[in-house]
């Protein structure tokens, strides 16, 4: 019943009582629907099948057809009169398209801003972690030499414990970022 090209009436929400076409079928009982907005004031949006009432009419359109294609199909099938709407003028179509473009542009800008902000935050967080690790490594290296004076007879083994400590610190530095 709810296939691509089926004309439906919306029965819920602010667009209730208005006609739309199914443009795409999605998982979980959802479909992509469009008026288009210039024709019936139904925005291109995802919609639950339970909020749609099918009509006997089907138009031939491709999956994810553009609004212009849908309007062309309406013309072919002579559906404007049956849906109780008139064919939209060029100005109306343009106005609707402009609105959509503006909305997309603003949302894109917002997304880009968000992405850049997140990157900056990540970098800052990484730097903070690095600095902290450096400090920890320093402290460990400073703390390690303490046992050295206990064995003052051999100079070589006293020097050795420093290196494993440094290695441990680096190993920790490698492990900790993974956890975060």
């Amino acid at each position: 019943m709810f296939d691509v090209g089926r004309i439906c009436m919306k029965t819920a929400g602010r667009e209730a009582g208005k006609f739309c076409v199914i443009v795409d079928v999605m998982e979980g009982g959802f479909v992509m629907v469009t008026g288009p907005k210039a024709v019936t004031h139904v925005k291109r949006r995802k919609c639950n099948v339970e909020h749609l009432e099918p009509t006997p009419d089907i138009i031939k359109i491709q999956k994810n057809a553009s609004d212009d294609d849908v309007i062309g199909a309406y013309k072919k099938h002579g559906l404007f009169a049956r849906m109780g709407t008139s064919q939209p003028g060029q100005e109306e179509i343009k106005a609707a398209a402009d609105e959509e473009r503006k909305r997309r542009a603003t949302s894109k800008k917002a997304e880009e801003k968000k992405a850049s902000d997140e990157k900056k935050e990540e970098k800052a967080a990484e730097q903070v972690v690095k600095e902290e690790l450096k400090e920890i490594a320093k402290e460990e290296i400073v703390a390690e030499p303490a046992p050295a004076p206990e064995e003052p007879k051999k100079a070589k083994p006293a020097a050795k414990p420093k290196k494993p400590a440094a290695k441990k610190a680096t190993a920790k530095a490698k492990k900790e970022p993974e956890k975060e």
Partner: protein
Amino acid sequence: MRSRSFRRVKVGTPGGKQVIRYLKRRPGAAKCGSCKKPLSGVPRLRPCRLAKLPKTKKRPERPYGGQLCPSCSRELFRKKNMERWENV
């Protein structure tokens, strides 16, 4: 004033006392035009308070919002759809 035509609201004063204030009663809940069920999304306020609210807070956004309940409005749209396509 002391009759029960006014509702009594206990109000705490800044001095720590509890005082009774007499306010006019609120109107009953708005009801669906066809099934008479109380509507949600329509505030129970005196008209003077209602006038201060924005339009979107006074009723649901859907057509017949604040007049019909969602299930009744859905049925109505379904019927309208059927009639329309039968007639044409």
